């Protein structure tokens, strides 16, 4: 481009930020919520109980599987950690002779969800739970999964470009480090707010964007693998070494005591927690128990797998230590997922991630604030300006409203309804598009106040909706000391209050005395 490097980067920052901004905002906000994926799932499955120790859950799982699927080819148990109330079971039935065993995981018929404490099967209402926010933040919805992931990848790539070009554009990163002037002219204070949320949490934004791309590296950049390996399987074997499969011997032998095996595994890991337990040939003399370490135990997401003799409980083998580059990859993956055990660290992640949402939102608003001053006739903006303004309102207020609407649907849709989980998801998109439609129908300043107020109401009323429709409520959570659910309700209230504060601010701008100064930039929507 003509002009200086900085000018061209400012242009790139503005337009890449605008074009991808709305999707990025939705990705950032749903991703932020995903740091509390297990808690959201627990809230959305009020039929489930409380978290319990993994040893207790393992005992229940083995008892259930021995009764239900004694002859299975393999069992897989995802143990709960201190944030989850259920163990998730899956088993692969023994192949009938002469029939090729299905390699793909079946649906429904060989899965079970057990209460972590009692080991009894529970059937929670049909819901995607926190999993939906997690999935939608990197693969969209209503799109084939791979296409959705490519869309997310393109957005993330341009997020990275927007961050880097933004750093180049920002002339006074260190001079303005602590600067926020909310009482200055609209453009100034919005720019300050954008800089503030971007610069102060810059390490987080860079980390989360780059590592986000790395989590789906196998899809986006398979070419290094292609260049070195003829078949992708060779690569996967090198990357994820597994114990060799053993043939069933036909000699019956009881399974080793699983809690004992888990204890040994935990000792091997210096106190690490087991997460996924895989038992091949249960009830046979050739049984093997593979225990995979919890992914939140270390920075590296893959904690390694230990294989035990399924009858004697002796340790057979462990996955080898990865090389430095592979370890870097896993640490990047782990940093993105933030499944670390410590609740404080998780809250820090959550707040930094909220700052990221604010960065995207203030950037989008700044686009309109900056251009409003230059409009030939500010009362009749051109189509492009109106479109951006409406989409800003409909998305910044609409995504939180949509997320809340999904939780409303979780409580209000009849429990036995067919396609219930899908309709919960639909309600997310219905509410979001409803907000965009609302923003298009109303004058922008009214629309800001109304949509933000609606979002605030939808979020803040959730604890009440939950209390009215299920046994989950703030009082009972307080009385039973279920702190995760207490925090959940309080967080909803706080987020609702924050949205209401934004609505108030937007309303205050509207009612500001008009003619005192003649610049129109003064009364941009807040």
């Amino acid at each position, binding site marked *: 481009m003509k002009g200086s490097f900085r000018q061209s980067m400012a242009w790139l920052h503005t337009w890449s930020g605008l074009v991808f901004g709305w999707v990025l905002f939705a990705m950032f906000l749903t991703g932020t919520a995903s740091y509390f994926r297990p808690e959201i799932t627990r809230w959305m499955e009020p039929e489930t109980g409380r978290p319990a120790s993994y040893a207790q859950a393992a005992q229940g799982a083995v008892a259930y599987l021995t009764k239900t699927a004694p002859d299975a080819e393999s069992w897989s148990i995802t143990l709960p950690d201190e944030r989850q109330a259920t163990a998730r079971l899956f088993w692969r039935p023994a192949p009938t002779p002469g029939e090729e065993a299905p390699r793909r995981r079946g649906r429904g018929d060989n899965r079970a969800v057990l209460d972590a404490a009692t080991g009894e099967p529970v059937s929670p209402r049909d819901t995607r739970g926190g999993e939906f926010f997690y999935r939608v933040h990197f693969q969209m919805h209503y799109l084939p999964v791979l296409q959705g992931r490519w869309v997310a990848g393109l957005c993330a790539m341009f997020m990275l470009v927007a961050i880097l070009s933004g750093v180049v554009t920002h002339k006074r990163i260190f001079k303005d480090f602590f600067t926020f002037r909310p009482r200055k002219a609209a453009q100034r204070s919005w720019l300050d707010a954008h800089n503030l949320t971007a610069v102060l949490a810059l390490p987080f934004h860079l980390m989360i964007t780059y590592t986000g791309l790395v989590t789906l590296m196998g899809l986006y950049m398979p*070419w*290094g693998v292609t260049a070195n390996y003829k078949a992708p399987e060779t690569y996967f074997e090198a990357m994820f070494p597994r114990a060799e499969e053993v043939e069933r011997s036909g000699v019956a032998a009881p399974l080793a005591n699983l809690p004992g095996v888990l204890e040994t595994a935990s000792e091997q890991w210096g106190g690490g927690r087991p997460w996924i337990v895989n038992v091949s040939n249960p009830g046979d003399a050739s049984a093997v128990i593979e225990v995979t370490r919890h992914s939140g135990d270390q920075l590296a997401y893959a904690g390694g797998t230990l294989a035990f003799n399924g009858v004697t409980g002796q340790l057979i083998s462990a996955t080898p230590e990865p090389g430095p580059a592979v370890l870097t990859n896993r640490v990047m993956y782990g940093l993105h997922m933030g499944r670390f055990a410590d609740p404080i660290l998780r809250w820090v992640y959550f707040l930094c991630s909220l700052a990221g949402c604010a960065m995207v939102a203030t950037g989008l608003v700044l686009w309109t604030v900056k251009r409003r001053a230059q409009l030939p006739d500010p009362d009749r903006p051109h189509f492009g300006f109106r479109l951006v303004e409406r989409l800003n309102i409909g998305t910044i207020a609409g995504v939180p409203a949509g997320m809340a609407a999904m939780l409303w649907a979780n409580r209000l849709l009849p429990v036995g309804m067919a396609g219930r989980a899908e309709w919960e998801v639909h309600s997310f998109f219905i509410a979001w598009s409803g907000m965009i439609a609302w923003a298009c129908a109303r004058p922008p300043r009214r629309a800001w106040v109304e949509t933000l107020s609606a979002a605030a109401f939808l979020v803040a009323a959730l604890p009440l909706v939950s209390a009215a429709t299920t046994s989950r409520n703030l009082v009972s959570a307080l009385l039973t000391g279920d702190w995760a659910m207490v925090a959940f309700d309080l967080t909803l209230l706080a987020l609702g209050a924050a949205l209401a504060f934004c609505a108030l601010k937007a309303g205050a701008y509207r009612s500001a005395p008009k003619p005192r100064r003649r610049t129109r930039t003064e009364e941009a929507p807040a």
Partner: protein
Amino acid sequence: MSGRVVRAPLWQRCADVAARAVAAIGLGYLVAALAAAALARWLPAPRLEATMIGSLASFAIFAAVAMWAFAAREAWRVWAFGCLVASGLAVLIWLSLLMEPRL
């Protein structure tokens, strides 16, 4: 933003931006992919490690090319130089495949 004194006609500016955008996304991806493959082949490390380093670095390369596509003085320079780099990388990959086949 640029040329506040003399503005080129609208279609020319649009064509310029389109040429740069396609270069940023398409050429950027091509160069990043080839660089990942070339690094995976040429880095003096075990195969798995080299593959990983190349792939991890590729996104930074992509971002650099995308930024340069908008920073360069003329759009055609991006295409010319980008294609040159891409063919250079392709030759490097081809050479290494001649010397040592894939696993």
